[in-house]
């Protein structure tokens, strides 16, 4: 039942805010909060040329579903879309979009922020940063 209120996808093609909005927009909701992650051209002082994202897809989808279902339980929100991209991404491309609809804005913002915070903690997806002179798995080392 609640599963009809969540849209979880891992894609190897460009993500689209409008596609997420098509899923979450409802006539009984007045507020939508959307988080869009974009690829930054630097990390600390090092220039980043591209990113690569790799996912343990089956488990990543289950973990994202857990996040979405828990948010539906804990916040007065109606629908939530979490789309994550994998593969090679260039600067300013979108690795992740989280979109939440709710009757009122406070719940939409709270759920959207909690979703991205939790995703970064629990979902088995890994980011490799490429520099002009090498590459590194983000967060792998202390």
């Amino acid at each position, binding site marked *: 039942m609640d599963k009809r209120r969540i849209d979880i996808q891992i894609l190897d093609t460009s993500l689209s805010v409008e596609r997420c909005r098509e899923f979450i927009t409802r006539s009984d909701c007045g507020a939508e909060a959307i988080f869009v992650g974009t690829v930054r051209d630097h990390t600390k002082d090092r220039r980043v040329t591209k990113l690569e994202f790799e996912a343990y897809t089956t*488990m990543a989808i289950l973990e994202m579903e857990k996040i979405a279902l828990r948010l539906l339980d804990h916040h007065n929100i109606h629908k939530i879309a979490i789309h994550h991209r994998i593969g090679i991404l260039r600067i300013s491309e979108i690795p992740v979009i989280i979109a939440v609809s709710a009757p009122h804005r406070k719940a939409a913002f709270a759920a959207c922020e909690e979703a*991205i915070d939790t995703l*970064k903690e629990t979902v088995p997806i*890994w980011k490799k940063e490429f520099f002009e002179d090498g590459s590194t798995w983000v967060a792998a080392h202390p």
Partner: protein
Amino acid sequence: MTTKLKILAFGIARDIMGGSSVQFNIEMPTTTSKLKKALIDQFPEFIDVRSLAVAVNNEYSSGSDVILDGDEVAIIPPVSGG
């Protein structure tokens, strides 16, 4: 008895283990902690990885959880999605 357990490896774990699906010799049944210890013994580079989790059948598993033949086992280095 020692069996070959198939382990899925991602991110830096894939680089360290040399593949995304690796056959690993271990006494079965085993537990999450024993598997982690055996992996670190065989691949000392894991010592330098900030944290190492194990997923069994697509769920995070903790120390004493038993791993049986046929389980889907994955090594989860620090995640960095988003």
